[in-house]
């Protein structure tokens, strides 16, 4: 069990009508690994995340997470298996405060029933306070103490991204999916985010898959890279090896020209 990959994707295929978004893609991610998926626009990167987290229903293939098949499960069920996610376009609950967003990340760890919630004493109160403590630790970790009570909708972009990372962390995941964590950020914000990602790996030991356009970041911090183009597997390997792969160069140059 310890040596087995945390996630094994085999022959994953997703079609929308006549278009094939993911075409028989296979890869696996080991525990503790920082795995990156790259590729030009429309390569099917986000679609893979959507399949993994249960938002899309792939037509074929298998996705085994910690020994459990993910296909056919609902998103909330997959989340409970220990998968968390950041979204490409921030999907925070904008009418709630930072604190409430992070507490939502703790949803599955709050164990009390409806009746207890109505009375808000005993178990419910205890559970809320215990989990609040966990959330406060994450707030410290991400250095967002000052905006604890701010409505998320009012925050600047960079902070929203950080709150979203915090919300995903609050779920205490075994696997964290990062969909373009630094897209649209300036250099400084990007470096902050990179530092948080590395800290998450070293301090918390969370396995991560990252979809990213910033090639520099990917090459700097990823352990292995999967390259996709038009939903098809092009290359897979450590950053240095992938960078020099002719098929990859062709795919990227083709896009650039």
């Amino acid at each position, binding site marked *: 069990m310890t040596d087995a990959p945390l996630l094994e994707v085999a022959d994953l295929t997703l079609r929308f009508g006549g278009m094939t978004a993911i075409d028989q893609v296979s890869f696996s991610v080991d525990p503790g690994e920082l795995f990156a998926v790259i590729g030009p626009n429309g390569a099917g990167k986000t679609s893979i995340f959507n399949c993994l987290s249960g938002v899309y229903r792939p037509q074929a293939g298998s996705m085994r997470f910690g020994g459990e098949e993910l296909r056919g499960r609902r*998103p909330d069920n997959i989340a409970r298996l220990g998968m968390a996610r950041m979204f490409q376009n921030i999907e925070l609950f904008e*009418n709630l405060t930072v604190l409430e967003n992070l507490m939502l990340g703790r*949803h599955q760890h709050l164990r009390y029933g409806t009746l207890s919630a109505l009375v808000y004493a005993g178990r419910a109160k205890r559970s809320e306070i215990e989990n609040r403590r966990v959330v406060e630790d994450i707030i410290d970790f991400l250095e967002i103490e000052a905006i604890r009570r701010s409505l998320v909708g009012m925050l600047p972009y960079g902070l929203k991204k950080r709150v979203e990372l915090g919300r995903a962390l609050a779920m205490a995941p075994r696997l964290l999916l990062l969909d373009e964590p630094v897209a649209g950020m300036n250099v400084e914000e990007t470096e902050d985010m990179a530092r948080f990602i590395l800290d998450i790996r070293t301090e918390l030991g969370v396995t991560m898959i990252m979809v990213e356009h910033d090639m520099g970041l990917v090459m700097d911090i990823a352990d292995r890279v999967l390259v996709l183009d038009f939903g098809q597997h092009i290359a897979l390997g450590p950053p240095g090896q992938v960078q020099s792969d002719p098929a990859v160069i062709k795919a990227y140059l083709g896009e650039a020209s």
Partner: protein
Amino acid sequence: MSLQVDGAARGGADVPSGGGGGGDGARRRPRSRVRGRPQLYTSYAADQAIWNTPAKRAWTLALVAAVLVLPFLLSRDLTSLLTTVFIFAIGGIGLNLITGYAGQVSLGHAFFMGLGAYTAAVFGGESTDRVVGLGLDMAIWLPLAGIVPAVVGLVVAPLAARVRGLYLAILTLGLVFIGEHVFKEARSITGGAGVGRAPAEPVLFGVDLSGRYHLFGYILSREDVFYFVCFAIFLVMAIAARNLTRSKLGRAFAAVRDRDVAAAVMGVSLRRTKTLAFTISSFYAGIAGALLVLVIGRVTPTSWNLFLSIDFLAVILIGGIATISGSILGAMFVVLMPRLVSELADVVPFISTSPGTGVFSVFQLQTMLFGALIVLFLVLEPRGLYGLWVRARNYWKAWPFSH
């Protein structure tokens, strides 16, 4: 410092010891707070309390005291009107839970209110040659008046959870029409259309609430007695709802409302959350329906129509979406506004108080104002009366540096 995220996750209810963040345990909750710093909390428990500032506590106490004294100062019809406010607030909170918090637009509130009223009438009403009634105590029929609609809500929820947005609004509208038909036809329960039946008997723990009672030399009329009973029920249900909304369920409601896909990815079960919202909301509706007919004096199948549902939508839209205190403000507004208009009608020139003359009758003016206010609030202050109150409060806080 080490983050205990993993440990907490695996251990479930295990408490990570010695976490940072400045909290000091639920067991040793310090009673005092640093004087003059109402926003400084020395424990999470104090932070999470409903009345977490001295101002809120003082306001609430003053309000409760005022509410308790009012019936001794008001005429009986105004007392009755305020009782209706409590009942509308209960129903409004119920609708706000599903539509305001959970974002599921329901036009079916009137149907669930009707179910509650008939459940109460069957269990608490008297049997006649026309309708069945078990004549049980209010301590039995009142909870049942919530539970039966809740169970029906539970049955309907799986279908409701499948459809979204305005499709759901019209689906629930269908409930109202089909419900009205069933109410008309189930004659042994409802008395049938155009006939109706008497509501449940208000006998609580053997005490007849429709009688007069002496209290410290003061005579409580039946309106007064019923006022206090409804206030007590309202208070319990409002606090319970407030608790619910600050719990994980309340957050799940908001998450499903704002971004349902993201909510699911966070581990919130959409089906379960929507079902729960439907069930709890129906419970509140049922209680409100059962109490409302006690004020009215008769249950009729045609009362549970689209317009009643719209009244309750107005309660939450005018009061404030997704706030409990907004629901209460909205209930006050919707119940008291018509009375205010009819009091003013003698002063305003073009309103007729005698039938068939004038530009508009009092009733028509009330109705038009009602419609116009829905539009005005949605366009100008989508947070409703609650939003106005927040604005006024912020202005006051900043005074004299407001502008």
